[in-house]
């Protein structure tokens, strides 16, 4: 009897064990289907609208906010496939194709072939992961490029994916859309199924331009949010002017509801940017979290977009900020060591207890573009003079230069809204 039991157990381990593992690691079948006059995505036979974010962390809140997918820019963070799976989310998995602007030479046969063969191994490694939704081949290779051979690389990888992976569509991701890119991808990349477009200010006309520029396959908005620093107005001393958190959150909500969701014919969904934090001109421009992980009012806006309702606790939302009574859109020039008054508008602050924090940084001038890494500017001690209600007075540095003051308004749930004003000390 004891011997028989052992045999049965062995059977379970030897036969069922691999079968169970297989079930866990089986890829989801994703395909593009015709839908009305356009397209839709289906995952394991079910309609699948992408409610996504560019995210590497904060997954429980992402899930609770109604998202169903994350975008990864490369397989370098492929461990996040498991994290996504844990929260029942899918992944648009990026294959990092080196852009020309980083020094890649698409006339160099060795560099090109090395990259392609390397990326093929990545495809084979991850194609069966159950969280994979689509392949994102390259990101913004078209930014300041002049060698169109990059599209041959994209096509070869896309064709390879179709050869070895029958479960996942292919996508390539570009920085904004124009007729030249449309032509190049249509002409040179027939194996690309979906166009991914990173669109900030240009999202306003994206849906129309998709049609005007003759893109007749589906697309998704692979990065979107508020207008980027590269589109922002500048002060006389070339500091980018960033809208307050509340204004940015409103802009996100409007763009999602009126632009992305309005195009259900060709648009398969979107990934908002950025469910996390990064330095891009400022530490708060695109990030929906602060550097220390506190969610901002942008998170609430996405919750509303994805679920149709606001979260139980709303973050404060700063709608306006002023220095010496002059709003954030204007230039602010002050004298060294001068005391200045900062005040702000925040209707959502009226209904809750809000803690205010001011921080001062040197201006982070940069000429970096795209996703290039930027360094955080130096923090400067701030000398408070007085605070009363929503008005604070502080002394600006005694050293001449360009600075930026940040206001953080935080509620007891550690939700925060951030606004800043650049100023010049003469």
């Amino acid at each position, binding site marked *: 009897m004891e011997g028989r039991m052992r045999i049965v157990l062995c059977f379970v381990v030897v036969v069922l064990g691999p079968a169970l593992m297989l079930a866990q690691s089986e890829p989801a079948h994703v395909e593009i289907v015709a839908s009305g006059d356009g397209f839709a995505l289906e995952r394991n036979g079910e309609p699948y609208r992408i409610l996504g974010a560019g995210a590497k962390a904060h997954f429980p809140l992402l899930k609770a906010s109604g998202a169903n997918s994350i975008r990864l820019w490369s397989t*370098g963070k492929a461990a996040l496939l498991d994290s996504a799976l844990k929260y029942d989310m899918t992944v648009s998995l990026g294959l990092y194709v080196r852009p020309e602007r980083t020094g890649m*030479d698409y*006339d*160099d*046969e*060795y*560099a090109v*072939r*090395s990259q392609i*063969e*390397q990326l093929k*191994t990545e495809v084979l490694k991850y194609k069966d992961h159950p969280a994979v939704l689509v392949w994102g081949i390259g990101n913004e290779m078209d930014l*300041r490029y*002049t*060698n*169109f*051979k990059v599209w041959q690389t994209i096509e070869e990888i896309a064709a390879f994916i179709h050869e070895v992976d029958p479960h996942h569509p292919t996508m390539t991701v570009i920085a904004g859309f124009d*007729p*030249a890119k*449309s*032509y*190049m991808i*249509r*002409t040179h990349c027939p194996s690309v199924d979906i166009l991914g477009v990173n669109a900030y200010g240009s999202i306003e006309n994206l849906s*129309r331009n998709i*049609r*005007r*520029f*003759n893109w007749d396959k589906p697309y998704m908005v692979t990065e979107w949010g508020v207008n980027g620093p590269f589109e922002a107005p500048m002060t006389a001393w070339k500091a980018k002017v960033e809208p307050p958190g509340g204004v940015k959150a409103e802009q996100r909500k409007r763009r999602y509801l009126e632009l992305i969701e309005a195009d259900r014919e060709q648009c398969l969904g979107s990934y908002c940017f950025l469910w996390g934090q990064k330095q891009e001109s400022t530490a708060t421009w695109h990030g929906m979290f602060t550097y220390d992980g506190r969610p901002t009012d942008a998170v609430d806006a996405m919750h509303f977009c994805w679920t149709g309702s606001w979260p139980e606790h709303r973050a404060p939302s700063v709608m306006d900020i002023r220095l010496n009574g002059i709003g954030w859109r204007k230039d602010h020039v002050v004298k060294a060591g001068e005391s200045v008054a900062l005040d702000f508008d925040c209707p959502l602050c009226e209904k809750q207890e809000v803690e205010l924090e001011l921080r001062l940084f040197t201006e982070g001038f940069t000429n970096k573009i795209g996703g290039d890494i930027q360094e955080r500017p130096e923090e400067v001690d701030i000398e408070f003079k007085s605070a009363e209600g929503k008005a604070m007075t502080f002394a600006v540095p005694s050293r001449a230069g360009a600075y930026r003051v940040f206001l953080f308004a935080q509620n007891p749930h550690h939700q925060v809204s951030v606004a800043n004003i650049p100023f010049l000390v003469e």
Partner: protein
Amino acid sequence: MMRLSALLLSLMLMVSCGQLQDVALYDVVQPEADVWAAFEYADIFTDSERTPAFGLKEVPCRSFRAVKEGSHSGEDHLHLKWDQSEGCNYIGMGFLWKDYKGKDLTGIYSEGAIELMVRVDSGFLTKVPMFFSLADYGGKRCVTKMSLLDMEGGGIGTEWTRVRIPLQAFRPERNGVNLANIKELRIEFQQKGDVHVDDIRMVPHQHHFGREASTSTHRVKELPIALGEGPESWWGINPAESSHFRFSAPPDGWSGSEAIVADVRLEGKKPWDSFGFGAHQWLLVDVNDHHSTSAVQFRLLSESPPKIRMALFAYRGSKRRIQIKLDEDNYHNVGPGEWAVRVPIKSIPGHEHMDWTALKEVRFQVLEDARFTAGDFELAEFRGNPDKPFKWKGG
């Protein structure tokens, strides 16, 4: 007599050719000087005593050690562990490579490679975030990394794996590195890794890759050239999106494969509608030799000249868009309801700041309600007064 002479001449030539071949056979052919035999800097790292390395330290972000156990050959090998996330911008090490003597790699450049033996303690890697740089004594350096193409067995496992880095992969010419006076080899590390490295040396290597010619630029050698041939080059003409523009067959006597029929009824806030085309298959079009003596011209059927703005775009440069609103001087009535349209490049404000080696697009904005047929777009020679496009009788 003529035929006989020709025959004799042919025979003489055959004899001559045969004699040339014979000479080649009987002459003693001197072999090329063996550059490898003369190259005294082949060993870069064999063990830490004979071929010292610098940067072998155990500090935050890296543990770079020489270890004896499990070496491929020699007394020891390098065990390199690093993790950039521990707060380091730069992690690197390098080799003294014959006590920093200036090394001339020019003789072995085309058929040489750096070879190294690599293994890992577990797993199988097809890429390692290690970057190899050759620095010259002028402070210039060129960088490359290991390629899957030159990893024996297609990746690095727990057995020693031979990896080669062709010298040509460094592309020293891009940074002006002086290959005749190389100082050192460095390795820079990114992200995270853990590898064993041994026996780094220069070896003969056949590199089967070259550089392809650029195909992104269409260079215009002479004018005229047709602009925007083929409907796939156009945008803004999609009946499903707008009824303002559609393609038609070109009217009799017009060249090109299509003409544009415009029926523009502007509504709402938008004060214009537009269409455009790539100058030539959306390539970079190099008209640098011609732009100052050329004009965009086309033909138009319309009761009266429509209000149009024309813009030209370049792929690069500080000025990427120039534009001009066409006026009566740009139109020339050539028959009932038929117009020739000519826009000299020099008449467009800002033309002198465009990069004419990278012309991208021609775009038209229709600024008021209009009905017309347009076609036969070309860039043609124009040497007249830019302000009087139809006074010039040349071309």
